[in-house]
């Protein structure tokens, strides 16, 4: 009963919280916001979260197993990373997106540095920001309560970025009726989770309060919009990923400073960067980048925020700190890499040692090669997927098509409507946001094969333009029916176009089959637009490209 009790160290009691219970509390605190996300964006969010958590746990287990380290899945940190990652994704993201993010988060950001407690960057945010390099995927925000297949809606962030107040009321923002990531929309639920964490003393209020306080103060000092500074401040605080970032991401114990003063500085830094990025960068949201940037400064903040020694005056404390700063800067020096390629050792015949040396060096070089290759591949992939030229070219091609099909329209936007026979239906708008008509992509059977074309129809049911986008017709025979003057004959027609008689367009001689095919297509497009069911008033906003 009392063996070696003298070896027991004081204190003899401990507080009940462990790493496991802290992570569990984190998961519990995230649940309200997640459930709100599921309510607004549908069951898909839950699946997304499950995929993300599963992938994180799997990668953590796999990596630890692969490298022969002790299994750390039980501390639940991988689950927290997975859930945070899923909650910072758009609800419409494909299911492979969180898997890729999880691989980057767990393997590159966390385990390469030694696992829990040793990484310098928040894993979930690291993964999220890698995924942010796919702009097409990560900036499609579904409207809440309409399902993910609805339209891509503008988030309040893009309004704030332009210096306008979002159309939602503050109450809607608080509850979460805004476009955005799956878990960040409901400010109320996030605050509820934050309150829980504070009550359980899992996080200290220093980082969230200084972070939100800084953002609020900056919003109060530089108000925009037309409803006063207070409304502007509230809109700033409640929209976007600010609350999710301030309460759950910035307070990640591993990647935030440990000293109380350092934590306050960290929060202020995050707030300043967030406000700066939100107003000045080309990307409407800045929370993620701000936190990641401050993560990189943690070592500095820890030194700057070191508590003053007990019992010495402020002047002496300052002097001591200055001395420490001088020492720290003296520690920084550039280390020359030790790469030696000596194959012969003096006074020794090439033997076992020599072979051993060659082997080690080959292994070193091999590792180096693999790392260089991996980095190169990653850079290539990032370049490939984020090639803005491709995006721009695609954009220009669509604009050109639009100007041919509907010359009056300034821009177009995808519509959710589906009709049999139409590949896609896009709506055309004038420069002052007036709906002008629809562009219908249809196919018909030509002489040589399938013929794809876009037909513009205005709201009166008249053709505004026709463009052939793909065909298999014979060159200089069938294509005679596709010249611009041949196609311009359709402009202004409505109803059903016949091959002869009233309301007809004559076939181009020598290209009768192709002409008939085009006429068929135009007729089908006209029929589709005439029967288009535009009930269920939906507010259309342009997609952000």
């Amino acid at each position, binding site marked *: *009963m*009392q063996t070696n*009790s*003298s070896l*027991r*160290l*004081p*204190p*003899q*009691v*401990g*507080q*009940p*919280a*462990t*790493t496991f*219970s*802290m992570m569990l509390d984190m998961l519990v605190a995230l649940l309200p916001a997640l459930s709100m996300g599921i309510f607004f964006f549908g069951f898909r969010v839950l699946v997304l979260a499950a995929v993300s958590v599963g992938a994180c746990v799997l990668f953590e287990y796999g990596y630890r197993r692969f490298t022969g380290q002790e299994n750390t899945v039980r*501390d639940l*940190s991988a689950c927290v990373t997975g859930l945070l990652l899923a909650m910072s994704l758009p609800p419409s993201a494909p299911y492979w997106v969180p898997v890729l993010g999880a691989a980057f988060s767990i393997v590159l950001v966390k385990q390469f540095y030694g*696992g*829990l*407690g*040793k990484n310098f960057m928040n894993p979930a945010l690291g993964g999220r920001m890698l995924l942010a390099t796919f702009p097409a995927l990560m900036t499609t925000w579904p409207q809440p309560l309409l399902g993910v297949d609805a339209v891509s809606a503008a988030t309040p962030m893009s309004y704030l970025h332009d210096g306008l107040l979002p159309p939602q009321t503050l109450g809607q923002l608080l509850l979460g009726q805004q476009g955005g990531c799956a878990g960040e929309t409901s400010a109320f639920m996030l605050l509820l989770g934050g309150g829980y964490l504070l009550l359980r003393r899992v996080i*200290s209020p220093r980082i969230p309060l200084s972070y939100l306080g800084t953002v609020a103060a900056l919003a109060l000092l530089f108000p925009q919009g037309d409803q006063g500074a207070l409304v502007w401040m509230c809109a700033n605080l409640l929209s976007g990923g600010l609350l999710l970032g301030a309460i759950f991401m910035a307070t990640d*114990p*591993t*990647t*935030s*400073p*440990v*000293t*109380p003063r350092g*934590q306050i500085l960290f929060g202020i830094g995050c707030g300043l960067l967030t406000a700066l990025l939100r107003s000045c960068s080309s990307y409407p949201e800045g929370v993620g980048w701000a936190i990641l940037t401050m993560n990189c400064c943690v070592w500095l903040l*820890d030194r700057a925020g*070191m*508590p*003053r*020694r*007990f*019992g*010495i005056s402020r002047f002496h404390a300052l002097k*001591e700190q200055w001395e*420490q700063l001088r*020492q720290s800067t003296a520690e920084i020096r550039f280390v020359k890499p030790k790469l030696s390629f000596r194959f012969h050792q003096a006074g020794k015949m090439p033997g076992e040692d020599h072979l051993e040396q060659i082997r080690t060096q080959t292994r070193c070089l091999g590792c180096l090669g693999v790392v260089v290759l991996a980095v190169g591949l990653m850079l290539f992939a990032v370049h490939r997927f984020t090639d803005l030229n491709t995006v721009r070219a695609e954009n220009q091609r669509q604009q050109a098509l639009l100007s041919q099909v509907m010359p009056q329209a300034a821009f177009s936007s995808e519509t959710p409507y589906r009709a049999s026979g139409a590949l896609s239906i896009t709506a055309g708008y004038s420069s002052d946001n007036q709906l002008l008509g629809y562009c219908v992509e249809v196919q018909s059977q030509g002489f040589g094969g399938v013929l794809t074309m876009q037909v513009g129809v205005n709201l009166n049911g008249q053709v505004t333009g026709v463009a052939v986008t793909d065909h298999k017709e014979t060159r200089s025979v069938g294509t005679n029916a596709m010249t611009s003057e041949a196609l311009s004959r359709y402009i202004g027609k409505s109803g059903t176009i016949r091959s002869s008689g009233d309301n007809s367009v004559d076939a181009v001689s020598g290209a009768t089959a192709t002409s008939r095919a085009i006429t068929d297509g135009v007729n089908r497009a006209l029929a589709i637009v005439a029967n288009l069911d535009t009930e269920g008033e939906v507010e259309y906003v342009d997609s952000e490209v």
Partner: protein
Amino acid sequence: MKHSFFGGVHPAGQKESTRRKPIARLDPQPQRVIIPLCTGSLGGAEPLVRPGDPVKVGQPLARGTDGGVGVHASVSGRVAALEVRPHPWGGSLPAFVVDNDGQNEPWNDCPSPLHLDEITQSLLLERTQWAGVAGMGGGAFPTAQKLEQAAGHIDTLIVNAAECEPYVTADHRLLLERSDHILQGAQVIAQCLGAKRTVVVTEGDKLNAVEAVERRLRKRGVQMELCTVGTRYPLGAERQIVQTVTGRETPADRTALDMNCLVLNVATVFAIQDALFRGRALTHRAVTVTGGAVARPRNLWVPIGTPLRCLLECCGGLREPPELILTGGPMMGIPQNSLEAPVVKNTNALICLTKWERRGQRPETTCIRCGKCVAACPMHLSPIFIAQALRQNRTNRLPALHPQDCIQCGCCSYICPAGIPLIELVRQAGELLEKGGTA
């Protein structure tokens, strides 16, 4: 201006089982008591009686030398032996074994009780020295020496009734039941030493004692402050209580006396008052016997030298086998190997913890850099960095982190969610630095 100290932790109080129980006499009386020769943290003692001599309650057994404290018989009977016995501070030290005859006859040659008007500074010092008073809150520093150093140049007398350790209620009950004596004692000490301000510091979980003291203060009309602060460990530590009352920070190489403050535990003040006004030596003290393993937890008035076993017997024995038995509070207390060790002057509690109560000493996991240890350290240390520097053998970083400032309060180990023995690492770092400094 309200002051406070930085950091600290909020351990579960666990005082509910004993805080309403009055201090009771020990019953049955111990058959024999073991009174260690050394009961103060400084100096030695020289025996005055030999085995076989009859002794009475209050009779000196040993005289303090080199500024040490004397000891007195706490029961009447016969000295059976002077031999090496287990000491509650660890190890074994020479102690008087006194066979109890159960009569409790008082010693006739006690000094006479003094009147309030005739007490002077020298008389106070002399009486305190004679009564063998040592710091009864935990330090066991010879009080007479402390008073002598303090005489004349302190401006604040702090009566420490904070009792921030969980489980312990002995000081709380003493303050509640003997308020009059304690206030009188504090008043006399302040007068003799020339302190302008007297402050009684208690915590918010002893509101009935606070009420009792306040009522008596109003009745007596004495110039004394009552400072009640929110419960937070380690308020009772000397540096923290000085900071809370005066806002002065005591550097690591100084004591509270250098900051013109004298901090005395309530039990010490009561012992001094007893010696002055009733001419009695320090022979008894209040001890809380508690913990989940004790059948009937209670507060006891115990003769010094009573083996811990007798205390447990008086409380109905053990309900279940304890995981750990310790003297003092669970944060800074000393684990006991045997129940034969006696109660000494600084033993304020005997706690038998069950397995479900301990929760300490979990298997160590990785540090997740939560920073709770930094936010909890009342001495402004960064245990996480000290532990890192020590474990990575970067001893050149240690001097800037001041591990020698540590007061061993255990807040860092208590709060650590990863179960890292931070207090031990900080202690090692401090020792390493001191060794390096002298070599």
